[in-house]
């Protein structure tokens, strides 16, 4: 379990993290969201024991990060931002070094190393110098060092940052694999990632928690929640369709994208407008390429609460 109480980090001229309190339970994958400079990395660094809080406290696995730092670090697997590694070492040498520091010995050391090498598919690069690896492989090595001691808590700072879409997908799959029995905290500013892997999202802005909910519930705060998006076959019907949609009582407003011949009807609070719109389309003889119900746009929620 991770628990923070009034966690605060002040620097000389600004407060990076301001009175942050939350708890994370096993099985949860917590996404830490926020604009750059919001305090995500600072919070994670305090949890990982790299920097000390100015006020408040944090505990990981029941160990206070300040008074029991070694025990707390022992239950954490941590991937720092940008996944810094020792570039001059070979992958095998580096993972062995981390396994030693993690106190793994004998049989267990060998099986854990074999497991992470297997799990992250590092067989082909074991003897390669880390400096010569591609970004994707380097990130995998970073993840391997974080899980080599099979920690109950994983703290990953922007694990997919700078990777290509395939590599991103791969890292997400790894996180999902590990999610069942661990506590995982990841920070990101990629919102689709939160929807893809997180069971819960905390949004922070200017060092404070501004939202703490499931990704679905956050998306539901969007004004696009239950909005209906319609794409027409014939762009010529756009104006007529717009007028007809706007005339419906439950529709609050209509947004038009001429390039895509798309209309998005936003509902008045609490109304379901899908049936009315589909009926309207039939009645007016609108030819539809696509009709769908939106669950809400996380990026819009994100912008509206962090701006």
């Amino acid at each position: 379990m991770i628990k923070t109480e009034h966690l605060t980090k002040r620097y000389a001229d600004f407060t990076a993290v301001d009175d942050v309190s939350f708890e994370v339970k096993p099985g949860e994958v917590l996404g830490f969201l926020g604009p750059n400079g919001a305090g995500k990395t600072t919070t994670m660094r305090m949890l990982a024991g790299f920097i000390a809080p100015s006020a408040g406290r944090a505990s990981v696995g029941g160990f206070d990060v300040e008074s029991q730092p070694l025990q707390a670090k022992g239950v954490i697997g941590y991937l720092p931002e940008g996944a810094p590694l020792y570039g001059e070492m070979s992958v095998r040498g580096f993972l062995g070094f981390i396994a030693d520091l993690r106190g793994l010995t004998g049989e267990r050391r060998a099986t854990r190393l074999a497991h992470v090498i297997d799990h992250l598919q590092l067989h082909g690069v074991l003897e390669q110098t880390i400096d010569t690896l591609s970004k994707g492989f380097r990130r995998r090595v970073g993840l391997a060092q974080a899980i080599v001691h099979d920690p109950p808590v994983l703290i990953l700072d922007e694990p997919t940052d700078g990777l290509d879409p395939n590599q991103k997908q791969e890292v997400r799959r790894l996180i999902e694999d590990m999610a069942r029995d661990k506590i995982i905290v990841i920070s990101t500013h990629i919102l689709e990632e939160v929807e893809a892997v997180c069971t819960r999202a905390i949004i922070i802005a200017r060092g404070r928690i501004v939202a703490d909910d499931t990704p679905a519930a956050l998306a539901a705060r969007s004004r696009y929640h239950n909005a209906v998006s319609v794409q027409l076959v014939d762009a010529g019907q756009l104006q007529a369709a717009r007028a007809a949609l706007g005339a419906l009582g439950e529709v609050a407003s209509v947004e038009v994208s001429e390039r895509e011949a798309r209309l998005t009807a936003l509902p008045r609070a609490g109304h379901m407008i899908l049936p009315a719109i589909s009926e309207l389309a039939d009645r007016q003889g609108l030819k539809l390429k696509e009709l769908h119900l939106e669950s809400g746009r996380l990026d819009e929620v994100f912008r509206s609460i962090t701006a």
Partner: protein
Amino acid sequence: MRNVGIIMRRELASYFATPLAYIYILIFLVLANVFTFYFGGFYEAGQADLGAFFRFVPFLFLFLIPAVAMKLWAEERKSGSIELLMTQPLTLWDAVLGKFLAAWIFTGIALALTFPLWITVNYLGKPDNGAIVAAYLGSLLLAGGFLAIGSCTSAITRNQVVAFIVGVVACFALVLAGFPPVLDVFRSWAPGALVDAVASLSLLTHFQSIQKGVIDLRDLLYFAMLIGLFLYATAITLELRKAD
């Protein structure tokens, strides 16, 4: 203690992972021999001892030791790997000590490779081998002192060049304090006690007294305290600046 050993082994291995370590040792050996034979007047002195070599050791170390020490922490901070290191279950002290010991062993290896000089004097005559052993020990302690200072200056900055220059200046100041011309400047106006105090701060004074073959507890204590003090300063500096 286990962690100190793990850190030390990794550091030592990383020295030899690049050609830099071999080049460094080569430069050290070439310079040591140039100083001994050309400037030290090894043959002209007509004495079977290594005085010609050990006289130049402090000045050789003055530039070469900060060059070893400069990467100790500056590089970790620049690459960000310090964050990886300090979030492993080890204490700051484990890391400071492990890195220092690795650098010390490395300079010890470079120093030990001057052994042909020792063989040469034994071939040419009958030197006082006890004094030579003492002088080697003194050189090793001197290297330790310089390394501790260099470790501290390396922790101050992310820039290795800055770490090197500040390290050389700091080491130079401590060497100068025992240099006769400098002491003469003090002697002309300061009371004798102050001159002695300045001289006793000097690395050179303590190194020379060991080099003469007299291993005095006070000299050993001086080096132990110097190393301890600067490693402690390294740890404090890191605690304050590691995340900058």
